[in-house]
């Protein structure tokens, strides 16, 4: 019970910090708008397969940029303070949940803007939304831990990309396939395998993150 309360307090703190500066959210939203618009200006018209791939590539880079900040924005002395009062598992869990909410929000805004600017070839829209939500979940669970690892090494942003690409590729392949099935309006039951494996990987990543974070949170 104390653990849940601690996590809830930490999530609340994340939102408060974000609300006061609005730095991350605004920055990422401008990033999304700019990227989608640049893609529109350079592609004009695209076929559905490229449409889907391009959407996921934009989302991938947006989420790397959004989540890479999660351990950089607070300074060292504040972490020293956290060490004395909170459970490390609660800290990483709060970051994952906060990133999950932020990423889902950004992913839906990105999808909305993307479909407005480009045409909309999606046939099974509800299922595509599910794929986007699963994407937000996968990106946030994977990148939060990677950003914790990268934040311990000095040259952050390059390392973040190097460390996260190999581990996100299997998830991204599944997500693109699931999204493509939804876009083509293929029978929903045929993508059950992909959803199962995605959820399984996410559960593993959650468990491993909670177990491993206590080892790296102090220097």
């Amino acid at each position: 019970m104390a653990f849940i309360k601690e996590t809830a307090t930490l999530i609340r703190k994340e939102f408060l910090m974000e609300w006061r500066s609005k730095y991350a959210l605004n920055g990422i939203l401008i990033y999304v708008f700019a990227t989608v618009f640049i893609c529109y200006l350079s592609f004009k018209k695209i076929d559905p397969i490229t449409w889907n791939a391009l959407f996921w590539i934009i989302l991938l880079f947006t989420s790397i940029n959004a989540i890479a900040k999660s351990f950089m924005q607070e300074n060292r002395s504040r972490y020293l303070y956290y060490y004395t009062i909170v459970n490390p598992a609660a800290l990483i869990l709060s970051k994952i949940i906060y990133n999950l909410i932020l990423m889902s929000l950004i992913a839906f805004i990105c999808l909305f803007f993307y479909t407005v600017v480009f045409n909309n070839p999606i046939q099974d829209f509800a299922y595509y939304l599910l794929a986007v939500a699963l994407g937000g979940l996968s990106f946030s669970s994977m990148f939060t831990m990677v950003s914790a690892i990268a934040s311990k090494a000095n040259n952050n942003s390059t390392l973040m990309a190097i460390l996260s690409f190999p581990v996100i590729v299997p998830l991204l392949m599944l997500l693109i396939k699931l999204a493509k099935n939804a876009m083509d309006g293929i029978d929903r039951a045929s993508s059950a395998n992909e959803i199962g494996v995605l959820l399984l990987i996410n559960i593993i990543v959650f468990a491993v993150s909670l177990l491993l974070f206590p080892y790296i949170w102090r220097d």
Partner: protein
Amino acid sequence: MKIKSDWWKILGVVLVLFSLFQGLMGRVPVLPILHETIRNIYYHVPMWFAMVILFVFNAVYSIKYLSSGNEHHDNIAVEAANVGLFLGVLGLLTGMLWAKYTWGEAWSNDPKQNSAAIGMLVYLAYFVLRGSLDEAQKRAKISAVYSVFAFPVMIVLLFILPRLTDSLHPGNGGNPGFNKYDMDNQMRMVFYPAVIGWILIGVWVMQIRVRLLEITNQILEN
């Protein structure tokens, strides 16, 4: 070399020599498309078995390092990743050579080929991470965390994803596994020793490299 503790090294050498010889000279069934290239099964497949075993060593010793903080465990983890990566490169090269003659192209966008290449990237990233940290203890701890974190993903990549899609490799996407039709009993008598032999050789190379690393560190400290 003491027979009691080092018998497995001799066994590894004998088994690999046996499989090298039998691979070139032994009798193989004549099959369409494969023809004589089926001999590559003795060289290509054991590389992957040995690589996976060494990556398991890497994950296990990373966990051991996290719980003990013993530098020796970190050295084993590093060298296991090194040797595993080398075996993986050999596996890719032998596989590409085989693919050139049976599938027509060295790289034919096969899911298992792609997965293996990305699996290699995980361990290359592991070495980049190690390179970016100066302090020895911090480097050991953070790279151990990354390797334990990445290991389940690599397992999914190598063993689950290729099975979800169509692959040119046997045993995937409805293709029969190679054990079922292609290999007769005589081939199995060479294949299994080759697998065991290469695993033993891989572990032996890792052990020698760990000793070399520790001696180098000792000299550098003095």
